[in-house]
Every structure is written in structure tokens, then in C-alpha cells.
């Protein structure tokens, strides 16, 4: 819908002067928002710009310090997601809130008030089928969540909100987990919904998505609304500038260099996932000194298992991992670390850091075994602090002090903390899993630069990423993984997004 058209109808939702303060941070500073029936509004901003806070206020997870919210012109108080649902506001979170051992239908009605003691599941399933047919959201109501792909699970989440009568659908970075094809389907679903007068708010920090999905865009920066305009009147460059507050360099300088000796060689590697099913089915590749091998693929095709197996966290059931010729298959995580393998894990908070411990302590978690951080089994506070100060400086980690608990840092600074520790401890091979996922433009650029700097120093890097642009910009070669197999390895210079997309979907490619 055009902006002019939109302005003539009444907004379905208005937020006025929303303020939300957290200790030390102003997350939302007098933000105004209006949403019109039948439109997709993109909410663009870097991490920490206040997008999620604003939406969490809207669905009743946070309460604003000041400001008013009106739905259909009537002022309302939203104190819980249940209140929000009653007003027709539903949110699809980044991390799905589904119960794996239960069916689609059960998940959709879970927590609904007014459900009879023994719900008529057949009738509920029928209703879900009607809705899913209507919106082309194909899912089997009787399927169990654990059987579904990530894209299908997202459809269940959307369906859940529609079933509950959502008129306003909030999507928090919905495409992060989808294939390009699935992302297109999502666009079609949104179109069908908005054609019926439903509205959507789309949280993202990707300019292409704003252009592809939305009619109107709001840009948040440091908690303030800095721009609001019709999507077709703006450009990705302008949006990027508004979002970051400066011109962004999209092209990284990547010097040509001849790869050296082979550092990591993987032959016929097989491993199983948590459910005991084959996750890796015979993986072969090599990475040389000063080379970045990118692994492209849709989430859940063995990336996590691959990273874990070549860092010693998961047992290989068959095959061989060699580091500079030495067979290291199924050694302990500590032996992998001692062999010079560093690992930037997918789960920053769950695996990479200890939230309740200080930044300085987290930075020391690889070096604490040796001098100067420890001497005869006793930690040395002064060298630890010096080391932390040097890392904070060199990697530009924004933290109030080295003693701050790491959980209070923003996503980008969490990642910089891990990078600082892992790069400093690295002895030849760096395994980086989604190192820029969820980071804002500024932090993404910083992380990519650090990876390239490591490459220049001769480190072999395995870069697992869902972001094809990133792989094309940073990697020397790109391997595509699909259902635990490498579908093809292409020099990045020759790989196109279309070819990669086909390989990611499982089409046979050049060996």
C-alpha cells in the first residue's frame, strides 16, 4: 500500500513517545510508530538500536517507562503477551517457542484460554487445515515439531498467531533461518495476509529485505527514530547510512595470496547428531595456510556437527581429521586446543562465554593454563588484567570495565570478546561458525576484517555461514553442504549466488 493511501485510512496501531530505560542504557527514547491496515512496516536498525525492546513492549514482555499505545484508536495497557493476543497482536520470535515432542495442533492451542478440559483435537486440526490452505502455509497439524524443518516450524509459529486471531503480526528477523526459496514463500504469505487487511511489522537489519518485503520503513538508531519513509522512495545505501550514521564500506580489501601448506585435511568424515542419526555422511576437504574455506548451506544440514567434530566436541564415527599431517581424529577438546585449533562457536552465550563471569575472566579462558596468566597453578590477577586491557583495546570491545560481567555486553561485543580470545590463542586453524549472525553492520564489518587479518597471518580458516554475501566477500573457496555431504567446492571468484542456491537445495554440482 502506498504511503499516501495509508495515511488516508486510520492506523490500526499507534505508539506515542515510548521510552524505556535499562540501567545505563536508553533502549527507546520517545519513539513514535504508526501501523496501517494492510501494510508491511520494516523496522530497521543495528543490534542494540532498540527494535526488539520496542516490539517486546508491544507484546507485553516489557512495560514502557513512558508513552502510550493505542489499538484501533483506543488507548490500551498491554501487560502480558496474553493481553497482546487479545488485542490481535502476535509475535514470531527469533527463537521459536515450540514444544518439540508435541504436535503442530497441540502447539497451536497450547496456552489458549477457554480451551475445554479435553479439547477436540480433530476439530482443531480441521480448523488449522482450513487456515493453512487459505494462507498457503502448508503444515500437517498432526506432525510432531521435531519432525519439521526450521522453515516449517516458522510456518507453525505464524499459523499459531493467525489461529489466535492476530491482526498485527510481528516478525523478528524471520529470514535468518530460511533458504532463499523459503524466504520467497514467506514473502508470498505476507502478501496474502496484507491483502486481507492484516498488517505486519518486520524486524531486520538487512537492507535487501526491507526493499523486498516492506511498503514503509522506520529506522531506529540508539533508541531513537531517525527516519521513516516509503520503501520505494529510498535506497539500500541511504538506509545503511541512516542505520549506522555513517557511510558503510561494503567492499572489504582482500589481498591475493598464495595458499601455503595444507593445515587441515578431512577425509570421509562421518558423525551422528543428538538423535543418533547420521549428520555427516562422508565429508572431504582441505584448508591451506592463509586460506578461508567457506561452508555454505541451509541450517541443519550438518554444519554444527562438522564444526563440533573438527574441534573435538563430537565423536567422528568414521573418517579422519589431520592437522598438519597428524591424525587428531577423536582426540579430546583440550588436545584439539593444544594442537592449535580455535573455535568461534555458533552459540555465543550458551557455549562461547560464561555470562556471570567478568570480561577479563572470559578473555583468560584459553590462556589461563599457562604463564603469564597462571604460575604454578595459581592465577595471576595483574597479568590477567593487563591482558584483558590489551584485548579490550585491540579488539575495541565496548565494556564499562574489565570486571563487568560479560552478560551485560551487547551481541557485537560478546562476539568481539570471543574473537579476541580465540584469535589470540589460535595456533593455525580457526573454525568460525556464523561469526556475524545477528551483529549490526559496524560489528559485522569489524569481525570480517579480523578474519581477513588472520588469513593474512597465514591462519587456515573454516568459515561456516548462512550469509552468501559474506562467503563471497571473505572466502577463497566455498563448499556447499547439503544433508551431511559436500555438494561441491567452488572458488569464490567463480561462484554465483544462483549456483550456490541450487547446490544448497541439493542439486548435484561440480565435484
Amino acid at each position, binding site marked *: 500500500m502506498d504511503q499516501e493511501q495509508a495515511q488516508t485510512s486510520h492506523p490500526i496501531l499507534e505508539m506515542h513517545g515510548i521510552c524505556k530505560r535499562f*540501567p545505563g542504557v536508553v533502549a527507546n527514547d520517545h519513539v513514535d510508530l504508526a501501523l496501517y491496515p494492510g501494510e508491511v512496516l520494516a523496522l530497521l536498525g543495528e543490534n542494540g538500536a532498540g527494535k526488539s525492546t520496542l516490539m517486546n513492549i508491544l507484546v507485553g514482555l516489557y512495560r514502557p517507562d513512558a508513552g502510550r499505545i493505542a489499538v484501533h484508536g483506543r*488507548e*490500551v495497557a498491554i*501487560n502480558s503477551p496474553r493481553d497482546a493476543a487479545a488485542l490481535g497482536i502476535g509475535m514470531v520470535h527469533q527463537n521459536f517457542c515450540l514444544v518439540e515432542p508435541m504436535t503442530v495442533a497441540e502447539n497451536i492451542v497450547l496456552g489458549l484460554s*477457554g480451551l475445554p478440559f479435553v479439547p477436540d483435537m480433530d476439530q482443531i486440526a480441521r480448523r488449522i487445515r482450513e487456515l493453512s490452505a487459505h494462507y498457503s502455509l502448508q503444515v500437517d497439524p498432526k506432525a510432531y515439531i521435531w519432525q519439521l524443518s526450521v522453515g516449517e516450524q516458522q510456518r507453525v509459529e505464524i499459523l499459531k498467531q493467525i489461529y489466535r486471531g492476530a491482526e498485527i503480526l510481528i516478525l523478528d528477523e524471520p529470514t535468518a533461518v530460511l533458504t532463499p526459496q523459503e524466504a520467497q514463500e514467506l514473502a508470498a504469505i505476507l502478501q496474502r495476509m496484507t491483502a486481507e487487511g492484516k498488517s505486519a511489522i518486520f524486524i531486520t537489519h538487512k537492507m535487501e529485505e526491507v526493499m523486498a518485503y516492506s511498503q514503509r520503513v522506520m529506522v531506529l538508531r540508539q533508541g531513537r527514530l531517525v527516519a521513516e519513509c516509503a520503501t520505494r522512495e529510498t535506497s539500500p545505501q541511504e538506509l545503511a547510512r541512516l542505520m549506522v550514521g555513517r557511510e558503510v564500506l561494503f567492499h572489504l580489501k582482500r589481498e591475493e595470496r598464495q595458499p601455503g601448506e595444507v593445515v587441515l585435511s578431512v577425509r570421509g568424515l562421518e558423525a551422528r547428531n543428538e538423535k543418533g542419526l547420521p549428520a555427516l555422511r562422508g565429508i572431504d576437504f582441505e584448508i591451506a595456510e592463509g586460506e578461508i574455506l567457506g561452508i555454505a548451506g541451509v541450517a541443519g544440514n550438518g554444519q554444527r556437527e562438522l564444526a563440533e567434530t573438527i*574441534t573435538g566436541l563430537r565423536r567422528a564415527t568414521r573418517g579422519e581429521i589431520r592437522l598438519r599431517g597428524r591424525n587428531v581424529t577423536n582426540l579430546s577438546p583440550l588436545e584439539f586446543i*593444544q594442537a592449535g585449533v580455535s*573455535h568461534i562457536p555458533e552459540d555465543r552465550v550458551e557455549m562461547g562465554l560464561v555470562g556471570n563471569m567478568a570480561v577479563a575472566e572470559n578473555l583468560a579462558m584459553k590462556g589461563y*593454563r599457562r604463564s603469564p596468566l597462571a604460575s604454578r597453578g595459581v592465577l595471576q590477577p595483574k597479568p590477567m588484567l593487563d591482558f584483558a586491557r590489551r584485548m579490550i583495546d585491540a579488539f575495541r570491545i565496548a565494556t564499562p570495565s574489565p570486571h563487568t560481567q560479560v552478560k551485560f555486553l551487547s551481541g557485537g561485543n560478546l562476539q568481539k570478546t570471543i574473537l579476541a580470545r580465540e584469535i589470540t590463542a589460535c595456533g593455525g586453524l580457526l573454525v568460525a561458525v556464523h561469526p556475524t549472525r545477528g551483529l549490526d553492520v559496524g560489528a559485522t564489518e569489524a569481525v570480517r576484517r579480523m578474519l581477513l587479518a588472520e588469513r593474512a597471518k597465514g591462519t587456515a580458516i573454516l568459515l561456516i555461514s548462512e550469509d552468501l554475501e559474506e562467503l563471497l566477500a571473505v572466502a577463497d573457496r566455498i563448499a556447499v553442504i547439503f544433508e551431511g555431504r559436500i555438494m561441491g567446492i567452488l572458488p569464490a571468484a567463480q561462484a554465483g549466488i544462483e549456483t550456490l542456491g541450487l547446490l544448497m537445495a541439493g542439486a548435484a554440482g561440480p565435484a
Partner: protein
Amino acid sequence: MRITFEKRQSLSYQATILAPIASFALALLGGSLLLGLSGANPLATYAAMLDGAFGSWPNFTETLVKAIPLMLTGLAVSIAFRMQFWNIGAEGQLTLGGVAAAWIALFWAGIIPSTLLLPTVILAGIAAGALWAAVPALLKAYLRVDETLTTLMLNYVAILFSQYLFYGPWRDPKGYGFPGTAPFPDAAWLPRLAGRAHLGLVFAIIAAIALWFILKRTRWGFELRIIGENPTAARYLGINIARNIVLALLLSGALSGLAGACEVTGISHRLQQGLSIGYGFTAIIVAWMAQLNPLAVLVVAILMAGLLVGGDQVQIMMHLPAAVGVVLQGMILFPMLAGALFTEYRIKIVREPRRAPTTAPEVEL
């Protein structure tokens, strides 16, 4: 208007300190209701308890006597809980420590030179406690057997085993039929410091300081803290979790075993009924109230011992059941656990302009 909870952005340090104090106050308040119902004057009762526990030097030394095993088992429980290993088997580990100490004191006295007898007795108690804790630790670390069950059940094995010994094969033939072993030779008696308070107090203080240093300043303590906070991260960082669980539990069991050895060599001078009177369970309250801080354990243990001694006192003076002290101990735990809520959440009173409609609109297709 209604009251809601909001997650704090950072842990409140005031709440961390206030929660145990407020819990104690709430327990006293709840206890006074109970005392009132049973016809006693709560204030007079508390005054009597306070006097009984801390009112005079002899009374205070008696409080210390009970505080020593609480300190040692409190430290034992704290180190295990730090690793999220729910060792509720301190009682059994203490008992077995007492049994092993008695075994050396009774049957090796003639073989071991008398100067070495006491150290050997104490070391035997330490070793037995450690080994008894090693069983659930190994089961947990390598076979993932739930430790709450194993540690709890092994308590009864240890307690019944000790009863078997002093009712049966180890019973003193000259004991006029009383259940208990013969008294230990003098060389196996732990020196006393004041009243009945014995050298165990020094052991407990040294242990607390050592534990504090281990956790705060050593590489091993650093690993233990990482495992306790985030086991996934610990594994990723190359820390051997299974080995560390076993090591921490050996230490935990050793401290409980030491407590048992001190009890038999310092107080009863024989193995008899009354060694297992719940110190290992009270230790759980001590550990929580001290928020697993080794130095705080010392203070809290004295407080808890004061409740026990004070309870005995009101039984003698006011003819109230001695269980008053135990009841108060129990009542402290509940607000303590609830208090954890306030360190992470703040209470907010919300005034609502208007209620949102509570009925969901029909879905229209």
C-alpha cells in the same frame, strides 16, 4: 493496580546480602506465631535461646562445638553445589569418616606409634569420607546417574553400617549393654581449645580459607567455577568435566569425613549413637544461606549452631521442645529460597489505565 515482577538488569548486591538476613527475620516472625500458639512468650523464648547460645563463655563454646561439624559439612556441600552437583550425602560421608577414624583408633593403636596415631585417625576419616563421596561422583561423571538419589541413599547405608558396628562386632564388652564402642586410647583424642570446643575449629577455619583461595585464585578453582556456571562452555574450553566433578567431590567428601573424625576424636571419644544427628542435612541450609561463599559458611554455621544450642536451652529452662531450634532452621530455608527471586527480579506495582479486553476476537476468514 497490581504487583508484577520484572527481571533486573544486574544482580542486586543489596538483595544478595539482605535476603539471608530478611529470611532469618521472617523465620523468627513465623516461629513466634508457632510459639504463641503453644502458649509461650516468643520474645522471652528468643531471649532465652540467645542467652543459651551466646550468653556466656561456656554457652558459646558449646555453640562452637556444634558449629564445627556444620562448618566442615557446610563447606563440603558448598563446593559440591558450586559444581551443580547436589550432594545431599554429607551426613553419610561424615558418618563413614567417624567409622574409619574409630577403626584406626580402636584396632591400630598398638601398631601405630602414639604420636602418629591421631594424624592417622584423622587422615583415615578424611579418606573414608572422600571415598564415600567418590561413589556417586564416579556414577554421575561417567554414567550420568542422578546424584541426588545416590548421595541420599548412601547416607542410610553409611548410618546403618555404623549402627551395625557399634551394636554388633565393635560393641564395648564392658559397656553395660550400651550401644557404642570402647573409648579410644588417649593418643587418639583431639586436643580441646576451650570447653568442649576442639581443634576441629582450626581445621574448619583453615579449610574455609583454603577453599576460598582455591576458588578465587587457582587454575583449578577457575575451572570449577566455569563448570558450575556453564558446563557447555567448560567442555568447549577443553576442561575435563568428569575428572573435575570427581576431584571436587573427593574434596567435598574429605571435608565431611574430617567432620566425622573430629566428632568421634574430639567429643565422644568413641563411635556411638549420636554421631549422625543431621549435621550433613543442616549443612545444606548453611551452604545456601552463605550463598556458597566459604568464608560466609563459618559465620552462618555459628548462627545455625546457636539455634540448636538455644533450642536445647529453652527445653531445659522453659520446658519447651528443643525442636524449636530445628523448626526455626527449617523456616529459614523457605524465605531464603524465595529471596533468590528478589536478587534477580524487582517488584513493580503497576497502575493500569484500562483493562485490555480478555476475550479473544473470533477469527474471520
